[in-house]
């Protein structure tokens, strides 16, 4: 309590912080970025280890005897798929039944808000087929799910074949303690969403689905298979979920341990894991999770990894031994490589250092507001300070949020009128409307001031900046908790801008820097950077088209899967940025 109650020490500390405010902010920023970069190095990363005792040493099979048969089934599936022109529901039902599973189907349909050009679909109708292998010796309270998406064309046929082969193999074993559900879903993630919603009796995204007739217990874990060809050269682990959720680290470690045992190359996010640490691993983990969802079993409390692999029987066996939900290992982690991870205690301080900058700025503004320059005339200190006009602070707040709401609602609502008047397709209309509203927001400060009668007092921009800085700190903090990568990237670009913008900076240069650091330009830059990381650099036109498609995917993901990135950016980050834009042009 000493600091809070002793007035002399407080005053000294506050004086120090206000005098050295700018240097401390700069040091914190550099320290934050350096800390993050250093996360790839030895002292910060820990070797991965299995936390859950139930998944420890057990008997595991090293061979899968029915591999050839699985390939044959895969080819049969491909033939039937081509003949049916979609998902061969009857053949799948018959095949699963012949393998001794309880088979059920589920129909679903969804109309997208606007046509999806990447996957070329608008009105989606499909059927999911799933078979349940009941546990012979245990009550049916828990389940594991194996899925293989049924993709159009020639992709993923081997995965379905493998799935059916595994069903046959598992049927002959007697040690299963949990129900195993083999699911073949159509239209990948939409079908998966429909199945999960039907399984858990929720309806959050507006998909129409028929209720599920058959059900297992609560889902403990899920594995999704995707096989691109008959010959496997490496295994790729895809971990990120919707809204930045991650599966339990145990699941990833288990998978990696088996790969090492068998001697197959394992990659994470498409990059081979580097045994010696260098900064490359770190940049890979900086990848933004603003793109499409990977797995959203995580929303329903079970964990999924997507793999391209065929010897994960061992993984299923280990999962069979789980006595309770995966909870021992970490849920908040970053993986620079498959054998090392960074826990939340090590990566949060990097973000914390950036957030401290905002708090220091807020403290500085508070002190400036609380102690007006005292002009002693006639020996009496002038204590009458003009209280800040509430209206002049409230107006930019309201207008910025209204613009954000417009950015959120208008693109989809007005795509029909846009298509009528301009020669563009619907998805282009949506994206271009979004960009147009975003750019129109830049013209706001002039209109805001026209609405205000009288001139703004010198103090008022400080009050507005205080509110904006605290708003940004809280917003970035909440985002970093849910999705660290997104929060950190937003913080990297927005914090320096927030800290140093005042109406007294040179207008043109600051305006230019602000536009460069705004969320849309950050996204554009990240698209190019990501392509570079994948080692497929693109030209400017291709990059721009990719940027447009990222925006349309973001809007679609929000309405289809409940992803929060688009509402967050449109309703919160963008108005916050607009507040600072208002402050820059304060008259």
């Amino acid at each position, binding site marked *: 309590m000493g600091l809070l109650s002793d*007035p002399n020490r407080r005053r000294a500390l506050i004086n120090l912080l206000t005098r050295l405010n700018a240097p401390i902010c700069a040091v914190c920023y550099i320290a934050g970025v350096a800390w993050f970069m250093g996360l790839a190095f030895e002292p910060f990363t820990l070797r991965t280890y299995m936390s859950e005792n139930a998944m420890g040493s057990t008997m595991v099979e090293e061979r899968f005897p029915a591999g050839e048969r699985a390939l044959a089934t895969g080819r049969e599936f491909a033939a039937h798929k081509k003949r049916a022109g979609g998902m061969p529901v009857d053949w799948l039902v018959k095949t699963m039944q012949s393998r001794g599973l309880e088979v059920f189907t589920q129909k679903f349909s969804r109309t997208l808000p606007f046509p999806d050009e990447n996957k070329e679909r608008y009105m989606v109708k499909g059927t999911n087929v799933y078979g349940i292998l009941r546990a012979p010796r245990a009550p049916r309270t828990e389940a594991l799910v194996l899925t293989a998406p049924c993709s159009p064309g020639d992709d993923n046929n081997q995965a379905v074949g493998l799935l059916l082969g595994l069903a046959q193999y598992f049927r002959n074993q007697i040690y299963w303690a949990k129900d195993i559900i083999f699911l073949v879903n159509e239209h990948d993630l939409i079908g998966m969403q429909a199945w999960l919603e039907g399984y858990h009796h929720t309806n959050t995204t507006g998909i129409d689905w028929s209720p599920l007739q058959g059900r297992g217990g609560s889902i403990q874990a899920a594995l999704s298979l995707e096989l691109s060809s008959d010959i496997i050269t490496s295994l790729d682990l895809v971990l990120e979920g919707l809204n930045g*959720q991650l599966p339990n680290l145990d699941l990833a470690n288990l998978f990696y341990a088996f790969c090492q045992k068998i001697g197959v190359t394992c990659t994470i996010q498409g990059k081979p894991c580097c045994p010696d640490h260098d900064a490359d691993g770190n940049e890979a983990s900086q990848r933004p999770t603003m793109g499409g969802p990977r797995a959203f079993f995580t929303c329903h409390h079970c964990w999924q990894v997507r793999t391209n692999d065929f010897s994960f029987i061992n993984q299923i066996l280990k999962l069979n031994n789980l006595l309770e939900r995966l909870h021992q290992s970490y849920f908040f982690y970053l993986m620079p490589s498959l054998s090392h991870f960074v826990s939340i205690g090590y990566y949060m301080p990097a973000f914390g250092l950036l957030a401290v900058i905002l708090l220091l700025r807020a403290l500085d503004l508070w002190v400036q507001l609380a102690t007006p320059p005292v002009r002693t005339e006639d020996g009496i200190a002038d204590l009458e300070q003009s209280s800040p006009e509430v209206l002049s602070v409230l107006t930019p707040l309201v207008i910025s949020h209204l613009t954000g709401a417009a950015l959120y609602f208008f693109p989809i609502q007005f795509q029909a009128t846009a298509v009528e008047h301009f020669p563009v397709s619907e998805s282009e209309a949506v994206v271009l409307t979004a960009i147009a509203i975003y750019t129109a927001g830049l013209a706001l400060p002039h209109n805001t001031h026209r609405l205000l009668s009288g001139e703004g007092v010198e103090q008022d921009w400080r009050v507005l900046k205080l509110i904006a800085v605290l708003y940004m700190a809280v917003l970035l*903090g*909440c985002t970093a908790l849910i999705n660290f990568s997104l929060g950190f990237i937003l913080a990297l670009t927005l914090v320096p801008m927030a800290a140093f913008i005042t109406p007294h900076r040179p207008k043109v240069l600051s305006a230019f820097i602000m536009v460069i650091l705004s969320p849309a330009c950050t996204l554009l830059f990240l698209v190019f950077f990501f392509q570079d990381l994948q080692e497929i650099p693109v030209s400017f036109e291709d990059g721009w088209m990719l940027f447009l498609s990222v925006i349309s995917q973001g809007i679609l993901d929000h309405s289809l899967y409940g992803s929060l990135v688009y509402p967050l950016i449109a309703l919160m980050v963008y108005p916050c940025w607009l507040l600072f834009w208002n402050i820059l042009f304060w008259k």
Partner: protein
Amino acid sequence: MAAPLTVVLIVAVTVRACLFRSSLADLIAERVEVVSPLNAWKRVVEGLALLDLGVSPYSGDVFHETPLIIYLFHFLVDYAEITFMLADVITAVALYYAVQDYNTQVLRQQKFALEAERLPLDSLELIRSPRQMYYIPLKVAMVYLLNPFTVLSCVAKSTCGLNNAIVALFILSTIKKNALLSAIFLALSTYQSIYPVTLCAPAVLYLLQRQYIPVNVRWASFWWFLLQYAFMYLGSLFVIICLSFFLLGSWDYLPSVYGFILSVPDLTPNIGLFWYFFAEMFEHFRLFFLCVFQINVFFYTIPLSIKLKEHPVFLIFMQLAVISIFKSYPTVGDIALYMSFLPVWSHLHRFLRNIFLVSCVLLACSALFPVLWHLWIYSGSANSNFYYAITLLFNVAQILLVSDYFYAFLRREHHLTYGLYLKRKDGSEATLVLK
């Protein structure tokens, strides 16, 4: 002043009506920060359904509100939204008139002190002028009505709004010197949730002060008034309890309501301090810790009353704050009630020391509550420790806020007695330090 108040009322009612009609109403009604097992609307509806079936509404450990509430809603269930909006309006108007009367009292006392020359010369800048205090009642009403916590509580149809209305009417009748009504409303609010019994002390102190009876155990009139007030209070409480018995025909409401409040069997997470402790505690020690936690709410009454016996309205504020922080099932509606008093003490602004820290922490915690709840319950990544950390931080910030205002109040009183610029015995400048 009626016109601005009416405008504020209309704006508040519009905001609530819009939210009632939107899809957010259901979402808000499920938030644990806004509703608790005591005052959730869902439970009132369950109780009404049980009553309609002829079964006691207290069977099955679902409904924990008092019989008077259930009979009120038996007739008003179709107009529930209007009832809650009306409760908020009544609270705001009651607080408005109460604070207006209180300000008149304060100005009068200040005038007497000035005329009697009891104030040292250099503390004259601490004197408040009628112009400064003119807008305070309107600000109090505005802060209560437009506080996001109040709006959320109203939209969730939590019966906390009704409890706040009763407490506000109690405060109004106390300040208007009406001892009978004050006792009746206090009995009603004690009947609703036990904790307002601690507001007896400030009510008695205020009424004694207004009747110019010194608070001294040797004076017969002190004991006579105390006896009168106790009689009125206990009498009304007795009448209300017997009425509840006759309404439902049984005494099951006593263990269901008061037993529930005192023994805290339901450990649903909320913004209070009880749930986590009792979830991890051994059964062996449960009674001991229960007593410790419950005594904590009542404990501060005596020392605070002794210190603040000249300032009973500030004592009411402190008591309301202590109740909201330490009660067994707090919600944000309770916090909104004591926060609406903050404009009354706006003249203490220059002595407040931690207001920046407190506001930042309160703001951050209010934003982090839903985030960590989502991470814990829906994503399964976090766990109860994360949520309780934010709860603890939130309560620490509230305690810091209340103690800061207490310090500022006492410091101002000290300056009014000893002067603003303090000097040590040898004439050098001194500063006040709270040790």
